[in-house]
């Protein structure tokens, strides 16, 4: 499984890749991945590469990812090239039309890439009093729902619960389910 997670500093991208790693480790798979540190906390683009199974290097190559998790619409546009033909794009986005029209729509149809838009900010505003820090776990819920990863909700729930700090645990599980059902 090769997953690329993209977004903006402060969105909890690194926590998401930690959850994926924990699940793979519990399944007895080898794990390797890479994250960008340093300048990213200040609102710059953040990218995390995740690979489970028999791989050597930590980076996913362009055209090779099974899934791209995009916490931000603009970062999705910039990083759609990571997806392999037949891959899945899960994107936090309030305007799905951007992925249907023009060169983007044509490319995605051409490569048979499935798009799963989640209006993350809208849902969090409405259902979790605008606490946007739960966006990451919501996207993980959508990942399970997309059926593109072979991950079960049981595995995901237990990994999220175990890795969450106590005070965020219940809200994380709530956000996970909001993402799953969205």
């Amino acid at each position: 499984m090769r997953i690329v997670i993209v977004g903006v500093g402060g969105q909890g991208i690194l926590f998401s890749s930690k959850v994926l790693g924990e699940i793979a480790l519990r399944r007895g798979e080898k794990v390797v991945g890479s994250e960008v540190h340093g300048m990213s906390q200040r609102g710059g683009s953040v990218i995390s590469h995740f690979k489970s199974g028999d791989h050597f290097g930590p980076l996913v190559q362009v055209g090779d990812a099974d899934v791209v998790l995009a916490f931000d619409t603009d970062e999705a546009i910039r990083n759609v090239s990571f997806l392999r033909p037949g891959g899945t794009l899960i994107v936090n986005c309030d305007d799905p039309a951007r992925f249907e029209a023009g060169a983007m729509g044509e490319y995605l149809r051409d490569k048979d890439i499935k798009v799963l838009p989640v209006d993350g900010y809208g849902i969090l505003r409405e259902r979790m009093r605008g606490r946007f820090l739960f966006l990451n776990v919501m996207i993980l819920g959508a990942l399970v729902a997309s059926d593109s990863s072979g991950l079960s909700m049981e595995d995901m729930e237990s990994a999220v619960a175990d890795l969450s700090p106590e005070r965020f645990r219940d809200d994380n599980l709530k956000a996970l389910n909001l993402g799953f059902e969205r």
Partner: protein
Amino acid sequence: MSERRILLGNEAIARGVVESGCAVATAYPGTPSSEILPAIAAYSDEMGTNTQVEWGANEKVALEMAIGACYAGKRSCAVMKQVGLNVAADPFMSVAHQKLDGGLLVVVSDDPGCHASQDDQDSRAYAAAAKIPCFDPSDAREAKAMVADAFDLADRYGVMAMLRPTVRVDHCRQDVEIMDDVVSQKDAVFDRKPAGKRIVMPAVIHGFLDDHSDRFEAIRGEFGAMDRYNFEVPSEEPAKLGVIACGISYSVVRDILNRLGRKDVSILKIGTPVPLPVNLVEDFVDRHDRVLILEETQPVVEGQIPNRTAVMGRWNGWVPKTGELVPEVVESLLLRALGVEEDLSDREVFNKIEEELSPEKRRPRLCPGCSHRPAYFSIRKVFPDAVVASDIGCYGLAIAQNAVDTNICMGGSVTAASGIYLAFKADGKGTDRPIFATLGDSTFFHSGMTGLATAVYNRHAFVLVILDNRITAMTGGQDHPGTGDKMRSGEEGVSVSIEEAVKGCGVKWLSVLDPYDIEKNKKTIEKAWEHASSNREPAVIVFRHPCITMLKVKPEYRPVKVDPSACIGCGLCIRDFNCPGLVWDQATGKAMVDDRYCVNCGVCVAVCPKGAIVPEGGDR
């Protein structure tokens, strides 16, 4: 007992250091190396070792402390990033020539592609210059194993060894085997004999130089036999191409060959680039018609290959001269070397997509609520024409609000301001243009103090602004002499006062301000320059406000909104204040608050010249 855990590369290195029985570990933080020392502290706590874990005020300090521990016969380790090695280069070169008692390991993290650095330098070249052995890991697992072997080699030969991970090794996450056992060590002892063994002066060092060279050659022989780090991955079909790959490039090229299904390429992996096991390399080159060499960043291995006529590398332009060897680059090099035409059609499609949807370009900038932003805004507001020298640290990101004119390296703002002053002085213009130097609290202790003492002594007129956010923020929130906090649980430090240090350097005019208070601070900024210019000496302002991200400090709840009837769309708040919580609304041509990023600090109320940013009221 062993266990498998997913570790960051830096955690794997730290675990290796503790398992190796290292007694003293020191560092100054720097991306991509910053997580290593705190992880050493954490593992030391977990495993119950008595490892002494200390931040030095800078890399030279850190390395010299590790050297001292090694003089007392203990295994010790100093950690830094590649640019930090420049600061520590002085002790690094000297100690390289000495025969040591304890094993000394220096971990230097390189940053090919400059993800978080001002340059692309290759620390293996430093190892070559100093004639010390260097290990170049290709992943987290190997990095951990190499720490153990590096300590062993350093112990046996009495040399300083280098582990040189690159950013993709430091920041990879991988499942890694960890052990419970710690290599046992002898007690500290300072052996005075033979006389002069730890003295560096011409008369003494001459006798050591040949020994140093002999040890280096003996280690070359050991590396030739270290087949766990230097080995061949033969091709399954007759080889059309040979690849010599070092460090992370080895991991990258193996994935690509699997992906392409090529079975006609053989690889020679080199994990110990300095001193290069030349025999292995010559033999591999002899057996292949063409050899592509992949190493980051500089041609350190390539340059040691005696016959390069069949080698495709940097010297003949096959490999790009700069930048990171990411998978896309490596694949394109491989295909070209194999004579395969690359399919570039998708690239045109991606260009078209970006053109149509024009995603926002995100340059690094200060966090919402960051106290540096109003500090810089105030300086620029009072003196729009001031020359503002800055430094390497978060505050340098104020370049995005057009408030920073220069930066060189840590501590360089103070001395650059001195030089700028002298340049004007040389023209007889004296002080008509305000000069400011800005740096952080950690940077002040790193190497700002020496520049300040120099400026006081020589009577340089500028305002030094110390942006004290109580943490080393840029690298992820490490402590320093000013914070006084320490890494290991149960250890207490002492906080060194910046004000006292400033006064101790001879500064007569000093003011401590809260940067959030823009209106109130303008007068003081004016006075500081007035003092500096009329008395021909540095004046110092300390802007003190805790880092909003690293210290998880919530500002007072003062939500704001933009009054669209008052906003004239001048864009000053976007351009000069540049907070991610304020965004431009294309539709109305006015500013608005973005609730996804705004932290409700309310500081921007003082920014709008038309008073269009107004408090909203309400409780948290």
